[in-house]
């Protein structure tokens, strides 16, 4: 059995908003180049977990990226270490054009391959090329989600955090975005931590899944096993 290297290790993660604690000691890992899904109901703490990983809220415990402890670091420093977060609400720059959003994605990069990556994004997301000079705020919901993912990938991250990429989108657009994500996963080798309400969709894409309930991890395992497990599906995933 080949050793897969650990990209992200999270241990005893606690945190929340002011006096309200949301995460009550989470442990999970993301392997290099794999997709890990965090599943759970509304209010379980999925979004908060992503915020905790990228330093948007104060946390206790250990968040370790490729052997380096990043707990308590500033969001911009964590981003510069290779964590790209596509937050809920997408986090695109609505007032700026698609092109400017692309340039901001590559803001911290000094290498010569930025233009090549732009072209790769155009290939993955041809709609964005058509909207190149358009203000991001005028894009459709699906296009904005694509722009948010492209912007994050342009950072050449080691770890991509995706917060509900299907949220508020028509089923066909969701299919399209998850299709592109399968390609990204095969062609880019980036590790993905995916939060998703649509468990069926997430389990199709993921290698491994964790189920969160009120800030605790209740079960975890290979995505394929969780998909097959009727008891888990009925109790936690509701389908």
């Amino acid at each position: 059995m080949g050793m897969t290297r650990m990209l992200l290790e999270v241990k005893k993660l606690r945190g929340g908003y002011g006096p309200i604690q949301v995460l009550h000691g989470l442990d999970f890992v993301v392997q290099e180049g794999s997709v890990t899904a965090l599943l759970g109901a509304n209010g379980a703490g999925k979004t908060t977990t992503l915020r905790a990983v990228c330093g948007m809220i104060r946390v206790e415990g250990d968040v370790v990226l490729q052997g380096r402890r990043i707990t308590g670091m500033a969001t911009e420093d964590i981003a510069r270490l290779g964590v790209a977060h596509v937050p809920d609400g997408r986090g695109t720059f609505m007032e700026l054009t698609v092109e400017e959003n692309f340039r901001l994605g590559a803001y911290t990069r000094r290498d010569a391959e930025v233009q090549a990556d732009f072209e790769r994004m155009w290939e993955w997301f041809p709609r964005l090329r058509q909207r190149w000079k358009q203000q991001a705020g005028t894009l459709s919901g699906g296009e904005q989600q694509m722009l948010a993912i492209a912007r994050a990938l342009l950072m050449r991250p080691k770890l991509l955090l995706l917060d509900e990429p299907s949220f508020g989108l028509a089923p066909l657009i969701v299919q399209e975005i998850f299709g592109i994500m399968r390609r990204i996963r095969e062609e880019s080798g980036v590790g993905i931590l995916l939060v998703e309400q649509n468990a069926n969709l997430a389990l199709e894409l993921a290698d491994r899944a964790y189920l969160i309930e009120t800030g605790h991890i209740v079960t975890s395992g290979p995505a394929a096993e969780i998909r097959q497990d009727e008891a888990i599906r009925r109790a936690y995933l509701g389908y």
Partner: protein
Amino acid sequence: MDGFAHQLIAGIATGGIYASVALALVMIYQATHHVNFAQGEMATLSTFIALTMIQAGLPYWVAFFATLVVSFVIGALVERILMRPVQNAPVLTHVGVFIGMLLIISNATGWIFGHTTKAFPTPFQSDGLLFGGLVSAHELGSTAVTLAVLILVYLFFAHTSLGLAMRAAAYNPRSARLVGIRVGWMLALGWGLAAAIGSVAGMMVAPAVFLDPNMMLGILLYAFAGALLGGIDNPSGAVIGGFMVGVLENLAGAYVVGTELKLTVALVIIIGVLVVRPSGLFGRVVFSRV
């Protein structure tokens, strides 16, 4: 007719000053959603620093560029030291800090450099008026300088990656952090740039109005009127608004209300805009669903 043309050109010249200060106000407003009432006083302090350097024997343009640098540093330090600790505080805290800064800088300037009115040199010397008496060399030169500054600022924000990062940090600080932009430093940079732009306005207006610690008080009011007229969230709108206020003020002063009531024109514009079109001529109207 020549009289009218002269008033118009003089209005454009003062309008350039208002446009610069309006741009400084808008830059800080966009990043922080507060109007820096002390912007004028900071510019006055810069102008005194320039005068000190000139009196110490430095050539005008050396003093000019040195003042830009010093003003930039002062502006950035104000953000780091004074604004940083209150960045999440309520609006009234900011108003308090701005008014405190206004009084402290104004009085410190008077204390250090004296309260008497001083002449300030212009680099654009000439005997009499140019173009058949239409415009003075200083009016022409200062308009050219302020236009050059405005164009440089525009090019910086539109075409450099640092300018883009500053805009991103102002529009959406949360997302800016997520792409690795150091938002705190972008704010300091914005304050520094605003102070440098303000210092140009101070140095360009001082030869015409003479330098004293309260020199920029009225100018800030006109600039604020210009920023509101053009739209406080729109830099190019604020610049156009600044020029419009300059021309309006001069024409109204010459033909309508007389020089004594000129400042009232600014107040009328401010109130008129707030009542009729609160987002200004070119501002964004923000709708929110309830």
